[in-house]
């Protein structure tokens, strides 16, 4: 994009103005797309791989659909998450004899429509998942880059910090922090990020350490790139494959963590709604109306399962060794996919 900015100021006449625009556009396209043939080959490989992995394909389609539903929740959901009153409470879902189609999954004790609450809950849960992965991932990767590239004392201090935090795994601490700071979406995001950035830092540091000695990094240093440039434009792109798999796995973990906190009544609070909170609201009616627990539980399980499938597909996609292993496994049918963890 910097190519666009460095071009000379407005052209004198109409013709040059247009060609100038064209030139700038091709320039920008090249800058964005890089080497088109390799790009095309890579994307072709990506889709080929996706099509050959039926589970991965199904999981991706499922997740895309879920994300779309979450984004367009106000359009998709038949009612608002807290719309309704006691006069419409306890309506049965459609499969019961007295159920109606106006409330497909029925309503809860408050008269809120179950399906709408699930859709809005999905929205909050996914939002928290994405936000935590973004915040924790950015911070963790930065710390990892710093630690791995600087080495020495910085490395020792940062990794000491990571070790201390890793040694005490989060749920109890997260529970206390969120409960005391108050269970808003923002605190949940902050606390879960605080509890989860260490994995990224460790992985990034490991990759940076092995890349630092490679010729292309040394070459960049020799021709006088500043450390920032070496790290951001030469080292960082090589982290994409391992980081994206990790991020997807972490996303699944965050979904479960948020749901657990909200289920205990210490995470997301009314009037906001998340999948865990929907399950929490159903706790008191476990024996009289188990669907209040079972429906959100199944939705959450399906979500996490599919995220895991996508993660395993990504790992195969990015890791030639893993791909070879799977190929060998298919040829001899000695191991099944997903078994390499």
């Amino acid at each position: 994009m910097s190519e666009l900015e460095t071009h000379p100021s407005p052209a004198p006449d109409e013709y040059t103005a247009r060609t100038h625009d064209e030139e700038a556009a091709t320039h920008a396209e090249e800058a964005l797309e890089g080497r088109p043939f390799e790009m095309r080959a890579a994307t072709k490989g990506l889709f080929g791989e996706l099509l050959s992995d039926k589970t991965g394909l199904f999981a991706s389609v499922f997740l895309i659909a879920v994300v779309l539903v979450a984004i367009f929740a106000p359009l998709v959901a038949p009612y608002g998450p807290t719309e309704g009153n006691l006069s419409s409470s306890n309506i049965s879902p459609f499969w019961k004899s007295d159920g109606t189609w106006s409330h497909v999954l029925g309503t809860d004790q408050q008269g809120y429509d179950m399906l709408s609450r699930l859709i809005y809950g999905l929205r909050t849960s996914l939002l928290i998942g994405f936000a935590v992965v973004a915040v924790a991932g950015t911070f963790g990767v930065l710390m990892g880059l710093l630690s791995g590239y600087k080495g020495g004392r910085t490395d020792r201090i940062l990794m000491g910090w990571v070790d201390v935090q890793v040694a005490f795994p989060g749920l109890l601490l997260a529970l206390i922090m969120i409960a005391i700071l108050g269970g808003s979406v923002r605190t949940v995001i902050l606390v879960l990020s605080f509890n989860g950035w260490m994995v990224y830092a460790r992985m990034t540091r490991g990759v940076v350490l092995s890349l630092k000695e490679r010729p292309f990094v040394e070459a960049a240093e020799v021709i006088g790139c500043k450390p920032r440039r070496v790290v951001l434009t030469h080292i960082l792109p090589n982290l994409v494959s391992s980081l994206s798999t990790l991020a997807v796995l972490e996303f699944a973990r965050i979904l479960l963590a948020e749901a657990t906190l909200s289920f205990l009544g210490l995470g997301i609070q009314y009037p906001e709604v998340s999948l865990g909170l929907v399950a929490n609201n159903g706790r008191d009616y476990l024996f009289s109306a188990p669907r209040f627990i079972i429906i959100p539980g199944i939705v959450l399980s399906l979500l996490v399962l599919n995220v895991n499938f996508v993660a395993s597909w990504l790992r195969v996609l990015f890791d030639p060794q893993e791909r070879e292993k799977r190929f060998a496994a298919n040829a001899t049918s000695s191991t099944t996919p997903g078994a390499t963890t």
Partner: protein
Amino acid sequence: MGRYLAGRLLQGLAVIFGVTVVVFVITRLVGDPVDFILPLSASTEQRARLRTDLGFDRSIASQFWSFLGDAVHLDFGNSTFYRNQGTLSVVWAFLPKTLELVAAGMLLAFIVSIALGTLAALKPGKITDKILVVLSLGGLATPQFFLCQVLLLYTSVEFNLVQFGPGPWTHLIMPSIALALPAIGRLSMVVRSAMIDELNTQYVKAARAKGIARWRIVFIHALRNAAIPFVTLFGWELIRALAGVTVVVENVFNWPGLGNLAITAIKERDFFLIQTIVLVVAVMVVVINIAIDFIYRFVDPRVKLS
């Protein structure tokens, strides 16, 4: 060796100190719990007096300093919810129940995951293996609280399988299964892939060529080597169970342990009790972490602790 142990102990102290500071600062940041402790009818002076008594009128640093001073004498303050009881003795009263649950659950996870993982690894790709892999994937994706509720629903009521209530040990069955299942899902996959690798090694082939019985190869030779990755992950599961998962299981099954105590303490804003619970859990976590390292060395003599 001694130096290694000293290093680990130092790191353990850092963990305990770090966790304590974080909890201390956070609880003090949000304001004092005096309004939670006293009834609505309490006068302003009474509130002010309690505030001074509990030290909430001083700066966080000065409060922390006196907390450390008392902690050296194993005095962690009095609980504000369980009136006039030292927090340590409250925690002490609830701790055995949690240890009982975690011990039962993790023992179950240990036995079942080794058995299932080995079973799956004996004939990889065959139907038993496939079923186990699918089950474990499903188990990994299921949130623990959902699992607990389903177990509660379908075992206690629908099928009337388990009698709840007092009993010598039967009350332990459901909560420990709930605690163990996700761990079994993860651990059995570790055992499975480690065992598949081991059973394909040269020494196993050599042993079989010599005519050693198959069960002996599997259980005595291969399993011991497969235990190396298992130990680390089992320790990790144990820590997870102690410092988190029990909270969920105890909450659903109404188990009178540390997890439920933590939730009570949080809801009642009993800062001193929260502090002590976290401290005790942190000490246990540190001890387990160090123990794992030593067990690791015992399982794999090639590992040098340095």
